[in-house]
């Protein structure tokens, strides 16, 4: 077995400003890594760099394919990279509108992902879409509705279904519960926890919420000022934080 994703000294500068600096880590199959830190600490920049949405200024991102071949993201052609992202990866945005196609129905949002990986049979596409709506707790009779008619929590669940329907091996999430009501957040978290565990997914989750990290992740990475300042098992970071900033972060939540 080898690492699914290998990040080597990834940095991203926005002109003179540092987005993220010198990040290295490996992600193994089934691991869920939470990247935490205050806003502006570079979490999203790093997530975009490692998920092929943004070109890092320097450093390498390598991915180990289903065929066991290791590929460097920057050495792939645009078409190869797009195919990989479509088939093997998922990306859940904080704002569901970024991750959904708002102009088509909920069913089409899920179905078109299947078509993108070669499924052509209409009946099968529809029944798979229906099945996935059920798994994310969306009533089947809402399949033909537009995502505009959905609540924030429903949109987020639809986005998750759209991402998971093609059975990706790796999923990236940026504040997946951000901007939702607390009760809606809780339900979404339970759903995500169940899905991630059942499917044995590997995931990288950016969050500023330590409760999200505790519930979903096995490992944590703490960022401050664009740098990774501390990494470790989730329970170890929460129970025995080493760095001053991490101690501040952990002590400022009442109970994680």
């Amino acid at each position, binding site marked *: 077995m080898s690492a699914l994703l290998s990040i080597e000294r990834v940095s991203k500068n926005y002109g003179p400003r540092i987005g993220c600096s010198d990040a290295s880590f490996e992600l193994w199959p089934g691991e869920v890594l939470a990247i935490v830190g205050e806003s502006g600490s570079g979490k999203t920049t790093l997530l975009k760099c490692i998920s092929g949405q943004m070109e890092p200024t320097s450093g390498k991102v390598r991915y180990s394919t289903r065929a066991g071949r290791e590929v460097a993201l920057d050495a792939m052609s645009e078409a190869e990279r797009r195919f990989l992202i479509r088939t093997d990866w998922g990306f859940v945005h904080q704002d569901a509108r970024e991750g959904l196609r708002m102009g088509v129905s909920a069913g089409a949002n899920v179905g078109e992902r299947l078509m993108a990986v070669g499924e052509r049979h209409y009946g099968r596409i529809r029944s798979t879409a229906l099945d996935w709506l059920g798994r994310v707790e969306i009533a089947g009779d809402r399949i033909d509705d537009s995502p505009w008619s959905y609540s924030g929590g429903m949109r987020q669940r639809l986005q998750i279904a759209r991402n998971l329907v093609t059975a990706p091996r790796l999923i990236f999430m940026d504040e997946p519960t951000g901007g939702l009501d607390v009760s809606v957040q809780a339900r979404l978290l339970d759903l995500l926890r169940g899905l991630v565990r059942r499917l044995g997914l590997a995931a990288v989750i950016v969050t500023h919420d330590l409760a999200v990290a505790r519930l979903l992740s096995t490992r944590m990475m703490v960022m401050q000022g664009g740098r990774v300042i501390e990494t470790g098992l989730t329970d*170890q970071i929460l*129970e025995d934080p080493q760095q001053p900033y991490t101690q501040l972060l952990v002590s400022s939540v009442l109970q994680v």
Partner: protein
Amino acid sequence: MTPVLSIEGLSKEFTLHQQGGTRITVLENVNLDVMAGEAMSITGQSGRGKSTLLKLIYGSYKASGGTVRVLHNGAWVNVAGAQPRDILRLRQQTIGYVTQFLRVIPRIPAIDIVAEPLIDRDVAPDVAVGRARDLLARLNIPEKLWHLSPMTFSGGEQQRVNIARGFAAHHPILLLDEPTASLDEENRSRVLSMIAEARAAGSAVVAVFHDEEERRKACEREVAL
């Protein structure tokens, strides 16, 4: 007899950055071997570092110095310095841990909390849930509570869910932190017999017991911190 757990020169110091960088040395140069099937108790006054030692063995705390070697599938793994994924594998198969307090996972029913360590080992769900039912029944958790989250349970009920979870899967090493502290007489003796059964099945036990009589019943060796 060969050890299954071998601790050498272990130390733990906390630096409290939020409180002027105060340093607290809790453990210094701890050396300890635990043999297969052996039950050892850790004694010492409150605040002496008993829970800290168990957390260092489990990898929830980071050692400041020394090694904590655990025999895992026939090979030694040093928890102090192992990669997170190696520690997770160790926890899944080799080290079980009953914490002093249950850390409730919100909204997850008691029965699933107990079955989870088995599910993580790819045990069939109906077998895992069956085992969870047996344990909860044995620890006198009323059946009507099984499908509720322990968030609203009493302290003693939470502790029994915690114990059931710790005993769900067989582990060659079991860490027990005051497992009987909040239990009544009847449940205490049930826990003691579960410990005896785990030992008969080959588990080594490292335990903290408040009560001296229980400690003597459960463990044959004692280490004072």
